[in-house]
């Protein structure tokens, strides 16, 4: 029996425009007092009318293009009709028949996931439950949302995670949203069913849409749970997918399981029709080209360039390019020697293992302005010339970044200049051998354990000894 999970994902991205989708209210709503960023339009008051946010439309097109979509030259908004207290008009202005962009593709390490559409709509308000009452806050009502709908081309929870991380990266590269799943500026709803091949028979389980997943891990766990549940369910009832048995299940993060949500009667009949309050929107080929030209280099292209032009590894390139800020900081750092592959590789090492590690510990984001390319060049020169050890070099990069020091002066003042004087090292080595008889005895049995003795020497020299020389000299002395 072959089991193939078939997964499609609907992702919603909250755009960080200054204003809402259809009115001039401040779109920021995190931590704002309730109902302080509202107006007749986003409150759905009688007589209010929507006027589309130009920037939101442009950003939706941008995202569609970045995901390989085609722009519809003429598109329009539609009303999606349903009743819920956090939806003030009793309909959501969204897109249906002719969305802004369609037919894209996202490459996940060779596996291409097709994108059905990337369209624009408005968010609902928020409801808060407090002591038996439901309280409504419309600050979020009307905030622009981009909806990205994938085809069911994803085949595993891991792939789902990869897909979401990729989407998140692309969105962040474009600077149009924070796409933070925990904060709710990126939301995901996977839809899953399973293809079961048993001998010469093929079965498809009914579709299930999962709601209320609030983290990436949650997405993976929920999908896996659902896969297992559907297989078990099918073995029990043999019910296959048809056009009417799609269900919605909520994810319970506490219990770590999905549960059938109460059937929202009539919720499937949205009675879509073109939004009469908003004239259609047309993009000429020139308009599309203009938006295309504002696209930054996207992660995939960048990584390819780092591999080809800089000779960096796939792994390192991915790390450096994980955010647009990071790649910009890196390229700024190498700007003084940008064609010297050797130096670039060296900086990549210092960047990843020195600077990034430091920033991760401090939980800080990289700031390009703090990088000093001249100082970077000096550090690399010092490391290449064995003037400082590689671990000191990492520290110097951090010092230059955080405190703007001149690395040569700093190294001198702090005794970090590498000791390569063989006589000095020999003296230290002799002392280490004398001080560590057990380690010496171990070395006789296991030559590889020389590392411990090298470590002791490095310690004694406060890291300034040339480690290669240290090892050589120790081995020479021990062999005598």
């Amino acid at each position, binding site marked *: 029996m072959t089991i193939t999970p078939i997964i499609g994902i609907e992702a919603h991205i909250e755009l960080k425009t200054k204003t809402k989708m259809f009115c001039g209210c401040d779109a920021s709503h995190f931590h704002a007092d309730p109902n302080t960023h509202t107006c007749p339009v986003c409150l*759905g008051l009688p007589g209010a009318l929507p006027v589309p946010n130009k920037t939101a439309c442009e950003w939706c097109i941008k995202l569609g293009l970045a995901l390989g979509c085609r722009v519809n030259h003429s598109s329009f908004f539609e009303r999606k009709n349903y009743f819920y207290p956090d939806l003030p008009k009793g309909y959501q202005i969204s897109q249906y028949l002719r969305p802004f962009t369609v037919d894209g593709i996202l490459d996940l390490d060779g596996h291409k996931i097709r994108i059905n559409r990337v369209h624009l709509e408005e968010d609902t308000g928020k409801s808060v439950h407090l002591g038996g009452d439901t309280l409504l806050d419309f600050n979020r009502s009307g905030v622009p949302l981009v909806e990205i709908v994938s085809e069911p081309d994803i085949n595993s929870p891991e792939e789902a995670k990869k897909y979401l991380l990729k989407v998140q990266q692309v969105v962040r590269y474009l600077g149009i949203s924070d796409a933070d799943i925990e904060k709710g500026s990126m939301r995901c709803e996977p839809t899953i069913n399973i293809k079961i091949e048993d001998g010469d028979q093929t079965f498809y389980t009914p579709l299930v849409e999962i709601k209320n997943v609030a983290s990436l891990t949650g997405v993976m766990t929920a999908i896996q749970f659902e896969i297992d549940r559907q297989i078990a369910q099918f073995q029990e009832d043999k019910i296959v997918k048809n056009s009417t048995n799609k269900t919605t299940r909520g994810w319970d993060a506490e219990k770590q399981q999905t549960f059938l949500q109460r059937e929202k009667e009539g919720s499937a009949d949205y009675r879509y029709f073109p939004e*009469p309050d908003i004239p259609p929107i047309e993009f000429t080929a020139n308009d599309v080209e203009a938006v295309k030209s504002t696209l930054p280099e996207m992660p995939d292209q960048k990584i390819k360039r780092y591999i080809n032009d800089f000779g960096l590894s796939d792994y390192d390139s991915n790390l450096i390019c994980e955010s647009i800020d990071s790649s910009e900081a890196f390229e700024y750092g190498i700007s003084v020697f940008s064609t010297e592959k050797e130096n670039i590789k060296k900086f990549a090492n210092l960047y990843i293992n020195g600077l990034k590690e430091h920033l991760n510990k401090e939980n800080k984001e990289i700031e390009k302005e703090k990088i000093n390319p001249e100082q970077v060049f000096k550090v690399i020169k010092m490391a290449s010339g064995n003037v400082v050890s590689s671990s000191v070099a990492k520290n110097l990069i951090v010092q230059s970044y955080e405190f703007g020091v001149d690395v040569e002066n700093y190294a001198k003042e702090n005794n970090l200049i590498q000791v390569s004087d063989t006589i000095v090292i020999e003296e230290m080595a002799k002392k280490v051998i004398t001080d560590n008889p057990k380690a010496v005895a171990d070395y006789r049995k296991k030559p590889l354990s020389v590392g411990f003795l090298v470590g002791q020497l490095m310690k004694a020299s406060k890291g300034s000894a040339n480690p290669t020389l240290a090892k050589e000299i120790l081995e020479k002395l021990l062999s005598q």
Partner: protein
Amino acid sequence: MELNNLTITKIRQGLLDKKFTAVEVATNYLDRINKLDQEVRAFITVTPEIALEQAKLVDKKISEGKDIGRLAGSTVAVKDIFLTKGIQSTSGSRVLEGYIPQYSSTVFEKVMSEDAILIGKVNCDPFAFGVSTENSGYFSTHNPWDLSRIPGGSSGGSAAAVAATFSTFALGSDTGGSIRQPAAMCGVSGIKVTYGRTSRYGVTSMASSFDTMGSLSSTVEDLALITETMAGIDPHDATSSSESVPAYSQLLDKVSLKGLKIGLPKEYFSEALNPEIKQKVMEAAQLYQKHGATLVDISLPSTSLGIDVYYILVPSEISANMSRYDGLRFGPSVRESKDLISYYMENRGQFMEPEVKRRIIIGTYALSSGYYDAYYLKASKVRTVIKQEFQDVFQKVDVILAPVCPSTAWPLGQKVNDPLQMYLEDVFTVCINVAGLPSLAVPCGFDGQNLPLGYQLIGNYFTEDRLFSIGHQYQQLTDFHLQKPKLNNIK
């Protein structure tokens, strides 16, 4: 001088000439309302304090030699679907009973900015759904010409207020004839503008792609001034037009009647038309002919389909526009329900008038799963056909002249139980809304029972200036528009 029988221009001039004060004008109207509105029942909310306060401000401006607005001192009765900040706006429905809006409609603000005086909010069919004002959740308005009859609808209160001279002019809306038909039935002039000419922001939406905001008054000259004030693009309304606003009031003599080609559409002069109305409307056409115009027989073959297009598209848009009325953020509310669905059903069921429910049901049905192509899409295609027919006709004629409604005002209560009959009364007005064209309703006589009737002048898009000119010149040659009903208890 009768202060309630002056045009906007005469009131303004009278103030400047210090013949009377704005307070005197306002007081005069308020007294009339006090004495006589219990018979007519045009008003839901009279605003005496606001009126006198505004009038005092106008008088102060004059005494200080400051400029006064082009509508200064004229009183306006505002259809209750227009939101007026701080003043109850019910849209003629119990759904909005007691609602005090947090903002005002754009066109209302424009009219106020020209120093008009708000005399009160007038009755209408709920949310403008109706042709007789009998559907109002509050009470029926009576035709000042015959108090046992309807004033027409949905702007029945607006037309009655002008006819009874309870206000100088009135604001109304026309989605399927709601200004023109009550204007004709009450013997006053009314303008339905080109769709998009005036802003819809701040007026409860009925059918978003049909609604137009307009006005009613005793003279076309007044309408020109009012429209000059109301028209123009509004950043709050994405369907409002960027066409520049002509100085309509300066262009009243612009169009020469000589050689003017007036089209008479045969479908509008069918057997459905009351013969008395037909005769009077033809007399109006012949008067134009006498002064040099040419009458041209034309045909608008899809006229009879207009009602069907209208009664699919309009209720469909209504059904969505009415979804926001749930008693949560505004409007009265039921206290507790057993679940969420029941909450919505009870709230909306309890306060909505039958006609409101009827239209929501039709619209929801037409848009429901599987029916979109058959109804909404089909009707939208026929809409294109109707639009095109008008365009073809305007290649041959300059303007179209036609009756406004098949009958004069019928007795209150006569048709309330027959919605289809009511809908068919719109036959001569709806196609104009389907196409989005402008149309001016002008009184042109009375039937055997002394009930008013009128004709409409239909123009191509954004030709209000021509319609005002052609209509104004008719009013220079006739006096139907000057006649006003005698109300009981008149001193």
